[in-house]
């Protein structure tokens, strides 16, 4: 891999992702529950299905809230240079992306209820062909970066 970018995202990201994963855990739990009830009512559904679903749910309950957020955070790096934005992310598949500053069309910050709880915000960078996100930056930093990028991108902007 190329020399990774220097900046890390906020530590709070781990907590935010963990919370999100825990909330999303409702879906497999509910599905498993429904299937178990159905198995109880109808005879033709084999018990193996329920057992399989329970195993998947348990694995999911361990991996997605407790393992993945940490790994994700460790890999997540970014760097805003004068002429380009350099981003690295990914757990199993690592991806490094280089975006020339003059190609940036617009930058947004956004914040859902979970991120708001931890005073974090996501920075979205859009070019004419692609969209890139830097998740979970401290609110203040996200706003500053947004303004910085929009200033840098304005210099030397030629049309599409």
């Amino acid at each position, binding site marked *: 891999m190329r020399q990774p970018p220097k900046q890390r995202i906020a530590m709070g990201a781990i907590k935010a992702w963990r919370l999100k994963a825990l909330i999303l855990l409702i879906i497999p739990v509910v599905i498993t529950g429904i299937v178990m009830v159905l198995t109880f009512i109808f005879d033709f559904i084999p018990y193996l299905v329920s057992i399989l679903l329970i195993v998947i749910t348990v694995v999911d309950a361990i991996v997605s809230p407790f393992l993945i957020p940490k790994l994700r955070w460790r890999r997540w790096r970014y760097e805003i240079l004068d*002429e380009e934005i350099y981003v690295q992310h*990914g757990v199993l*598949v*690592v991806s490094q992306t280089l975006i020339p500053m003059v190609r940036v069309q617009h930058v947004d910050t956004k914040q859902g209820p979970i991120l708001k709880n931890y005073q974090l915000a996501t920075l979205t960078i859009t070019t004419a062909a*692609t969209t890139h996100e830097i998740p979970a930056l401290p609110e203040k930093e996200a706003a500053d970066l947004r303004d910085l990028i929009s200033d840098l991108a304005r210099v030397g902007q030629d*049309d599409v």
Partner: protein
Amino acid sequence: MSDYKRLHPLAILFNVFNLFKSSFYFLFTIIVLSIGDGFILYTLLGLSVLTIVFAVIGFLIWRRFEYSVSSDQIHIKQGLLIRKDRYISKHRIQSIDLTQSIFHRPLGLTRVDVETAGSDKKVDAALSAVQLSEGKWIQNVMKSRANVGQDASIDHHESVQRPNRNITNKELFIAGSTSGSVGVILGLIGLLFSQIENIIPEKFYSMTTTWFLSQAIETIILIALVIVVLLWLLGILGTFIKYGQFQITRYDNELFITRGLLEKKQMTIPLKRIQAVGIEEGLTRQPFGLATIYVVIAGGEIGQTADAHTLLFPIIRKSKVQNFLNEILLEYNHFPSDMVNVPKRSIPYYMVRVSILPVILFVVSYIFYPQLLWMFFIIFSIAWLLGIANYRNSSYGINGRYLAIQLRRLSKETVLVPRRRVQSIENKQHVLHRKQALGQVIVSLLSKQSGSHLTVKELEQDDINKMLDWLSKY
């Protein structure tokens, strides 16, 4: 500001046609159902009423459609119930195309398509029928170096001595015969047949089948051969119609393309809008050293769903590409002389990738049709040949400010991108890749479908770093 104009009344016809087209599936279902139930009379009555209603709506749409062209923008007012006002600024226009279909030509009319960047086709403007002189005038006014106020007599064709290239009949014939459209047409016929199968009377169907099966095997092969040859000829004819009288002319800041025998098309491509130049060698063309040459431009071409690219020339010898670019598009004559291939240790990835689909097919057919297994000898050989070809063609090259990417998606494609047209470069690696210092590189460009991504898989890590550094030197 100039005053508002209406389209030629022929537009009403197009409106009605469009209304029918948009309700086609609905109508088609009803008609098929009613034919089966013997309600043909009512259906016909309903259709005629519908035609009258559509004619009225088509007329009203035409009445309410007004446009005005001024020195820096096009303004369009339209809408039956919801009024829409649209202003398109000159600086945002990617290109203006004139299309003359066989309906337009007897009346000296043309269709004008105004393309802007972006994937949303509804943002673009289309004037479905205006006088040809008016269309040319709009083209002139909206060009980057517009001479506003000059009349329409300034015609592209009058200013001669511009570098240009015409297609010859021989080239058209070669293009048609190698277009590989036989397969496409066969597929289409198959699709059509599966649709109308239900309509054909059972008796007729079974009679034909019995007759067909009772023939000697030689006859069947002969019939099949005749059909294939006919389709091949049809493909050639199609090419003649589509690309007949193809001409490309280089102006100072733009390319001008006219083509088409029945439907005449004129396209203006401002050089500033070109994102990349590509050479495509189709499966049926590569063995003969033939290729097509295209440009990637940003802008959703209306009604042209199949063509992702804009052809600069329908057929050309690979060895003549340099000459062609020298003459027409010197700015992009920078294809690097030596390309860097993906390393040998990436071969397994390429072979596994092409084998996935055949393996699935193999498993399925092993369960259901064990007697067909011999076919997989052929299928696997084809897949592996393709895998080797994919591996050998995947490469990149850097030539100063230009990056060339070569890859194969059935056809071999070589794309040249200037640095200032690259939207981003991404390097992706999974666990195995990291151990082997390989990676997948994705170069993103702006194109009609909001973005096109050129991917080279399993490239050497050092080479990817070189590409990233190349972009960094901005």
